[in-house]
């Protein structure tokens, strides 16, 4: 082995923030359903603490042996609305607390799957779960929640879009930061290891290990070496770097699954930033040649980046899944925050960017007096982009009471700090209040 290859790997970790962002254990809860919510909650706690008992210890040992940090250890479970089909909103709290208690007992960072899939309509459990969210997300610490309100196959459930706008406002009235634990999806994926949107889909195996890799810093450093070269060289460089990063994810995931005695699921090869300088997707885009992220050309650069990451990663892993691409959360990315504060990166540009990257409007703070219907309309716009273009989109919009444009809101840890951004001051209420269902696009009829 060549010394240069050894040095390259060591530098990626120590200087360029290469990490395994998460090892996420997906656990099916379909076999935990019992006669009462209390009994089911007990079964849920038991199953999670049995299978995930060694998750943290195994991940920590792998960190030691390979010298690669595994930033988060997480659990995702079957969407709780499916497990709690008969529950009332009050019953739902048993489930939320069972998840929270189990996550704390095994020492993971987050547990995802307090979720409902309502793209075509609501069942009893779905409505109960959504109604319980303001309490569930403020009374628990580690529980993460998601709701899928649209899909390319089913169209967009506008009633659900309206309800989610109201729910986000209701959560805001109880807590300044709990909204960061809720994401609203279109075309949600069933094997995503990233939070807040991780859940364990019903078509998944009983227990699996999914891995999310990261490393915007590594990509940026690689691109520094090809300054001024034609753009296809940029794409090639990103591909090669994504390949290397993903290979580490593949190795770690396979090993973790083997040691835990469960199936290995997928590698999600996303470029996920953290608030640390040098670990920013915005800085990668700027390295491609933009003075600041948000200027003209940002969407094109992001399209290239997102696509090249996928191409490089696909060959490096047995099975690729999740969201796989570039994430552009505002609060978690130092470069994005700078651009918003400088007035260069707007909500409109962010929306355009979401049409070519793997997620959506993520971790964006807006003033506390933003109307529920305005938030719903933002969700509808994002869902439209996802549904029409056969891609996942997600919305994590964070209204905070008592804030105005330009204030900073601190979400803590990996969630970072978000500058409050202006929203368009015209109403979308009559549109949202129509309710009903936006039909699926014509190209969904492929049967």
């Amino acid at each position: 082995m060549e010394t240069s290859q050894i040095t390259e790997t060591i530098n990626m970790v120590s200087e360029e923030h290469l990490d395994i962002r998460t090892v996420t254990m997906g656990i099916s809860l379909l076999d935990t359903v019992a006669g009462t919510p209390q009994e089911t909650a007990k079964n849920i706690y038991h199953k999670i603490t049995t299978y995930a008992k060694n998750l943290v210890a195994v991940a920590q040992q792998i960190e030691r042996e390979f010298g690669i940090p595994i930033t988060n250890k997480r659990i995702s479970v079957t969407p709780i609305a499916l497990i709690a089909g008969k529950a009332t909103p009050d019953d739902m709290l048993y489930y939320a607390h069972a998840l929270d208690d189990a996550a704390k007992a095994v020492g993971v960072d987050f547990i995802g799957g307090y979720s409902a899939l309502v793209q075509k309509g609501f069942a009893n459990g779905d409505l109960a779960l959504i109604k319980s969210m303001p309490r569930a997300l403020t009374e628990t610490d580690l529980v993460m929640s998601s709701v899928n309100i649209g899909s390319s196959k089913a169209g967009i459930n506008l009633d659900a879009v309206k309800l989610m706008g109201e729910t986000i406002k209701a959560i805001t009235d109880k807590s300044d930061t709990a909204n960061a634990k809720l994401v609203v999806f279109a075309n949600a994926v069933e094997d995503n290891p990233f939070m807040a949107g991780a859940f364990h889909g019903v078509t998944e195996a009983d227990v699996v290990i999914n891995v999310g890799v990261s490393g915007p810093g590594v990509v940026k450093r690689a691109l520094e070496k090809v300054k001024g070269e034609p753009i296809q060289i940029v794409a090639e460089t990103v591909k090669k770097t994504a390949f290397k990063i993903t290979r580490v994810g593949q190795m770690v995931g396979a090993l973790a699954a083997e040691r835990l005695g469960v199936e290995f699921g997928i590698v999600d090869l996303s470029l996920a930033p953290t608030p640390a300088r040098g670990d920013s997707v915005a800085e990668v885009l700027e390295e491609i040649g933009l003075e600041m992220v948000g200027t003209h050309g940002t969407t094109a650069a992001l399209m290239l980046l997102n696509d090249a990451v996928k191409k490089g990663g696909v060959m490096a892993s047995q099975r690729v899944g999740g969201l796989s691409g570039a994430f552009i959360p505002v609060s978690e990315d130092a470069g994005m925050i700078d651009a918003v504060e400088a007035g260069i990166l707007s909500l409109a540009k962010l929306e355009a960017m979401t049409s070519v990257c793997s997620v959506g409007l993520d971790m964006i703070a807006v003033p506390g007096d933003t109307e529920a219907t305005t938030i719903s309309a933002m969700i509808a716009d994002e869902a439209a982009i996802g549904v029409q273009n056969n891609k996942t989109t997600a919305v994590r919009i964070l209204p905070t009471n008592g804030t105005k444009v330009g204030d900073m809101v601190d979400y803590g840890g990996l969630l970072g700090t978000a500058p409050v951004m202006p929203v368009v001051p015209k109403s979308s209420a009559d549109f949202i209040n129509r309710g009903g269902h936006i039909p699926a696009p014509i190209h969904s009829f492929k049967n």
Partner: protein
Amino acid sequence: MAKAVVTVIGKDKPGIIAGVSNTLAEHHINILDVSQTIMSDIFTMSMLINLEKLDEEYNKLQDDLNGLGKQLNVEIHMQREEIFNAMSRV
């Protein structure tokens, strides 16, 4: 055969190779390959070692090497070989 790579980076001084080799010998570790250079006063060494006799005490050896690194004021990493192969070879 399980192998690991030990890398040492830091300001050159007498006793670095001796210290690392002694610690490895105390753990009955065989050194398979060594590559070492000094670039503008910075000592860089990578060693390929055989872990066959060790697996039980991986963490202990790593702690000892980290301790030695602190004592010598150099950075010592010990990582299993597979991570380098995964990244650099198809």
